[in-house]
């Protein structure tokens, strides 16, 4: 290097000269470096260059979650959980993290439109009023169809509106939410209060077709993960399900199970428990259990003869600490059977706790929506307003929808995108994103969670509530002019404690700061399980439809996709590119089929099949899914949108296959449609081939010392690197990790990682800095599943560094394998030499080609990489630097936990620990000393800085 510095015309100098002459040739204009616009009045407490955090609330369906928005210079750039929220506890659901991209979606409606032409908001409100007036004159109704309205203030606004507009019919509809649990709750408990599941208190969990560990429920993942430490307190998870879910993948015992038999199984378990001496709740007649006999299952389902009796013994032994869950695709009678089981096992009020749940509104799911559209088709409505609802896409019966929509003379639409439903409407009202809106939510009694804007309105949009309020103000004048005022007025009158020592304004600001306000609420007494309703359910379960011909008739389980959910997020490239957690398929949906069925029908990954049920058909590709129950198919809703530049045409819309809601579709015919497609999988090899790159042990053997972790020891000739000062390291606990991929999205948002699209995923050019590898082991019909989040291992003796011809990647004194993008010339040698395949190459100008305003989502602390450079995980070096600088500016030493990379902050399971390995008291140093620790490909002697703690399972061996 010294020669380089001394020579007169060094390489660097030469390149500088050439660059400068090129710059001159490009234009001899007067240099201008742009402007710095200073604030006229700086917002208090906000400093340019520092991250501001605002507490707000994310709502989806019936659930709401407290989140923290990280904003830079007024732009939200990252989301994480709000740690002051008593239920969210600092963890945000995966789709909330990704939804920041929808705020900056270039396809958003930018202004209100009347008959396709831009209109003023005043004119729009006038049009709405004249619609109401016309309805009154013609003596017809007005339909207000919305998504679930869970905000107590928004619900009050709608009921105020309904009082003022007599013909208003409000219906809330969520296309992908099943009605079965709610209807079972109504009949068995006389209330729809959904219990909160508390897996953290459970020692034995039985999940029937229930994805307890899906990434929309971070608190349940956290609860479950907290019970997976090795030792006697470790929980045991039994899963009976058709398709392989994240819950099934973590199960200690998983049974591929046809969902049509889940109700019979649950009642059978109840009978077996009763016969073993567990009493039925008072008022129950044991005769209702008589038809159910567990003994039929071992032969019919090819499972071990005694495993079910061991399960029953386990449940009995765990009374008070047992938890049985039924999934949304199961019919109401299965839910009733599960209520009975939980009542017998003393789980009510403990692991299933409804004592603080609020009564949700009744959704028009199931037959409700059909009845509304039928009355619309018969001309009952003069006008309709569709708000956050997209029936043109998601209503299962397109003919009925067409008939209904053409029978309504005037239609208005409130939403963020000109979607399928908006195309039917004359008046299109552009709506705010929730990060631009005000609201409140009541996740449980005694707890209110506030939503506040984290950015001014980007476009000429309005919050839906504000539009309704504008109408209401005109009809019934003494109203606050803005929804914020309406919200504050409700809080002042019904939330603000009258005898408080502070003013309302201070109280309100404190609530906005925390994002939540809670007060002690006495738990409501348990409602009694209604014996008659359960008896009815058991009769129904007896006569349940069984598939007659198992060779042609399949049971199809349709669930909202983990990524794009019911389709509302389908225009978000981050979520489209996020692979399905099990099949690892990005950009689209598939029909997961068992290996046995696929072999019988001569199908392989990508073969097209036609699914048909009652004349409704859909063609989609097959994915052979190890562990799928024979005779079943699993697929996801939310794809096949007909609008949106990203969403259009990705995957297949399966809503038309549904009957009444996302329940089970029994009797689906499957026929090979001929031909096949190449599917954009993120992972294409699924076996470990005997190499222990991921390790899992049975807890009992591991603790007894009979199954130690494999570690590679060899003699080194060259001493390995030593780091003075700090040495950044990471530990990943595979016993906690559930494979949900929240880390992937958090990393994408924090590090400006681009999406590449399906064609380039097919070429293996995806850019994610983290991937969650998923491997299957054992018999493909009953595999065990291993997850391993894989990112740059920051090897001490990194093989990528030695092959870089321009030294663009080299080592920092704190143990980071650093990447200088401005040096990188894109030879890709480093990627070839990386044994973990975690380096990503920018083949195109992804960032520069992104349409506005997407660039507002970029994190200004991370370089936006251009074409032709290599990139990879940096351990969030920008957060390391920020942590160090903040500690130094505050005049204190950096302490363990000050620095949290985005993946660790997002991980709902708390599986990722980051810190200084040279500090013996740090959590990461403790993890490195753990006996479960192993390093991936340790035999290469490259000394990765990441230790994985082997996953543990807790099988029941019957003693």
């Amino acid at each position, binding site marked *: 290097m010294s020669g380089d510095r001394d020579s007169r015309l060094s390489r660097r100098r030469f390149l500088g000269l050439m660059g400068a002459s090129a710059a001159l040739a490009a234009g001899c204009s007067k240099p201008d470096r*742009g402007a710095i616009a200073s604030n006229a009045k700086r917002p208090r407490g906000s400093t340019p260059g520092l991250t501001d955090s605002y507490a707000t609330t994310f709502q989806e369906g019936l659930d709401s979650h407290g989140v923290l928005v990280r904003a830079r210079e007024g732009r939200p750039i990252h989301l994480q959980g709000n740690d002051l929220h008593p239920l969210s506890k600092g963890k945000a659901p995966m789709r909330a993290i990704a939804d920041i991209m929808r705020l900056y979606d270039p396809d958003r409606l930018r202004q209100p439109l009347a008959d396709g032409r831009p209109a003023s908001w005043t004119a729009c409100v006038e049009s709405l009023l004249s619609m109401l007036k016309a309805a009154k004159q013609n003596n017809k109704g007005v339909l207000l169809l919305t998504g679930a309205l869970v905000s107590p203030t928004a619900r009050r606004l709608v009921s105020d509106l309904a009082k003022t507009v007599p013909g208003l019919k409000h219906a809330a509809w969520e296309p992908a939410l099943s009605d079965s649990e709610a209807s079972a709750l109504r009949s068995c408990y006389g209330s729809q209060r959904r219990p909160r599941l508390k897996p953290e208190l459970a020692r034995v969990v039985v999940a029937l077709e229930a994805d307890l560990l899906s990434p929309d429920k971070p608190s349940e993942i956290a609860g479950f993960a907290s019970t997976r430490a090795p030792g006697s307190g470790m929980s045991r998870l039994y899963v009976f399900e058709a398709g392989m879910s994240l819950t099934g993948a973590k199960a200690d015992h998983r049974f591929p199970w046809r969902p049509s038999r889940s109700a019979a199984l649950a009642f059978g378990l109840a009978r077996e428990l009763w016969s073993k001496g567990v009493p039925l709740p008072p008022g129950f007649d044991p005769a209702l259990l008589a038809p159910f006999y567990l003994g039929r299952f071992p032969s019919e389902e090819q499972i071990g003869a005694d495993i079910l009796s061991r399960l029953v013994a386990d449940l009995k032994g765990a009374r008070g600490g047992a938890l049985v869950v039924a999934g949304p695709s199961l019919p109401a009678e299965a839910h009733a059977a599960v209520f009975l089981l939980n009542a017998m096992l003393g789980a009510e009020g403990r692991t299933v706790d409804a004592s603080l749940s609020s009564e949700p509104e009744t959704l028009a799911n199931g037959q409700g929506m059909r009845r509304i559209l039928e009355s619309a088709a018969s001309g009952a409505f003069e006008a309709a307003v569709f708000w956050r609802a997209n029936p043109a896409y998601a209503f299962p019966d397109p003919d009925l929808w067409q008939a209904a929509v053409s029978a309504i003379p005037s239609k208005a639409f409130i939403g963020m995108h000109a979607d399928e439903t908006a195309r039917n409407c004359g008046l299109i009202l552009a709506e705010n994103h929730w990060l631009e809106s005000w609201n409140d939510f009541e996740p449980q009694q005694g707890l209110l969670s506030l939503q506040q804007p984290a950015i001014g309105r980007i476009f000429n949009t309005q919050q839906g509530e504000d539009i309704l309020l504008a109408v209401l103000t005109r009809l019934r004048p003494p109203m606050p002019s803005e929804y914020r005022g309406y919200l504050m007025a409700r809080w002042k009158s019904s939330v603000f404690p009258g005898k408080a020592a502070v003013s309302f304004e201070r109280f309100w600001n404190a609530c906005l700061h925390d994002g939540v306000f809670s007060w002690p609420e006495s738990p409501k007494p348990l409602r009694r399980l209604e014996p008659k309703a359960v008896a009815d359910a058991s009769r129904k379960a007896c006569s349940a439809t069984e598939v007659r011909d198992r060779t042609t008739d399949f049971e199809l389980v349709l669930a909202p996709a983990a990524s794009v959910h019911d389709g509302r997020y389908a225009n978000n490239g981050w979520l489209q590119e996020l692979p399905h957690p099990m099949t690892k398929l990005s950009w689209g949906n598939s029909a997961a089929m068992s290996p046995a069925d696929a072999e019988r029908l001569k199908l392989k990954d990508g073969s097209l099949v036609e699914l048909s049920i009652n004349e409704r058909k859909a063609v989609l590709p097959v994915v052979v899914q190890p562990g799928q129950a024979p005779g079943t198919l699993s697929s996801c809703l939310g794809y096949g949108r007909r609008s949106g530049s990203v969403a259009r045409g990705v995957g297949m819309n399966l809503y038309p296959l549904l009957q009444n809601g996302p329940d089970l579709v029994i009797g689906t015919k499957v026929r090979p449609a001929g031909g096949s497609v190449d599917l954009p999988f993120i992972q294409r090899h699924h076996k470990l081939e005997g190499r222990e790159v991921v390790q899992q042990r049975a807890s009992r053997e591991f603790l007894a010392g009979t199954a130690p972790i494999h570690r590679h020891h060899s003699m080194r000739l060259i001493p390995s690197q030593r780091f003075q000062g700090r040495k950044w390291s990471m530990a990943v606990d595979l016993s906690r990790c559930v494979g949900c991929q929240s880390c992937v999205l958090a990393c994408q948002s924090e590090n400006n990682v681009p999406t590449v699209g399906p064609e380039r995923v097919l070429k293996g050019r995806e850019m994610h800095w983290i991937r969650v590898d998923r491997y299957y082991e054992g018999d493909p019909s009953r595999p065990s599943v291993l997850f391993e989040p894989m990112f740059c291992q920051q090897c001490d003796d990194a093989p990528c560094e030695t092959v870089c011809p321009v030294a663009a990647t080299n080592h920092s*004194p704190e143990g980071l394998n650093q990447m200088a993008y*401005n040096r990188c010339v894109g030879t890709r040698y480093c990627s070839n030499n990386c044994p973990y395949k975690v380096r990503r190459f920018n083949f195109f100008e992804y960032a520069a080609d992104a349409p506005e305003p997407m660039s507002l989502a970029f994190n200004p602390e991370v370089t936006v990489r251009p074409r032709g450079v290599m990139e990879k995980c*940096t351990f969030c070096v*920008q957060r390391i630097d920020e942590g160090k600088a903040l500690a130094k*500016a505050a005049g204190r030493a950096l302490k363990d936990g000050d620095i949290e990379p985005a993946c660790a902050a997002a991980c709902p399971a708390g599986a990722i620990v980051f810190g200084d390995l040279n500090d013996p008291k740090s959590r990461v140093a403790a993890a490195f000393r753990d006996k479960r620790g192993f390093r991936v490909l340790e035999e290469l002697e490259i000394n990765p800085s990441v230790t994985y703690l082997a996953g543990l399972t807790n099988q029941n061996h019957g003693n």
Partner: protein
Amino acid sequence: MALLDETVWDHVRQGPVAAVLAASALGVAATVLGVGWLTQPDSLSRGFAPVQPIPFSHRDHAGSMAMPCLFCHSGAARSRSAGIPDADVCMGCHRVTKTDSPAIIKLKEASDAGTPIAWKRVHSLPDHVFFDHRPHVNAGVACQTCHGPIQKMTTVRQHMSLRMSNCLGCHRNPKPALPPDSTIAKAPENCNACHR
């Protein structure tokens, strides 16, 4: 050479074409190198002093009145950007001082209307450089070390060339820029210190 006809090649080698070609090659090289030399980043960037929308004088404020730099650029000690003061900070004094000057009238208008003042950027780093004011200011590096005799400048001009060698020169030997009692012997030289 297979693409060139043998006779054509001979013609080029011998005739006056060769001399013309050689001369123009030399000319191109001289132009490239000459223009490059004259316009290298150093000579372009140092001394850059754009006309500001309001002729704010650092000589009057930081020089004659000896106002501390951090009074206006308060971010320098706690944020990566030093920050430009908002108009309200200026108006703290100028509500009563020099209210009849055209510049202050312009300032007051901006402050009253709430419109930002678009100050011309003087120092600009490439996007892949992440400079942080905090560690430098907190270590006791004087602002003038990089920004030059700012207390003497009526119009701010760029004093130091913002080339990597200038950063590294000081990072390798920070003593001259630090207060005499400073314990810092070296500043980081690894890539991640500035690039990420």
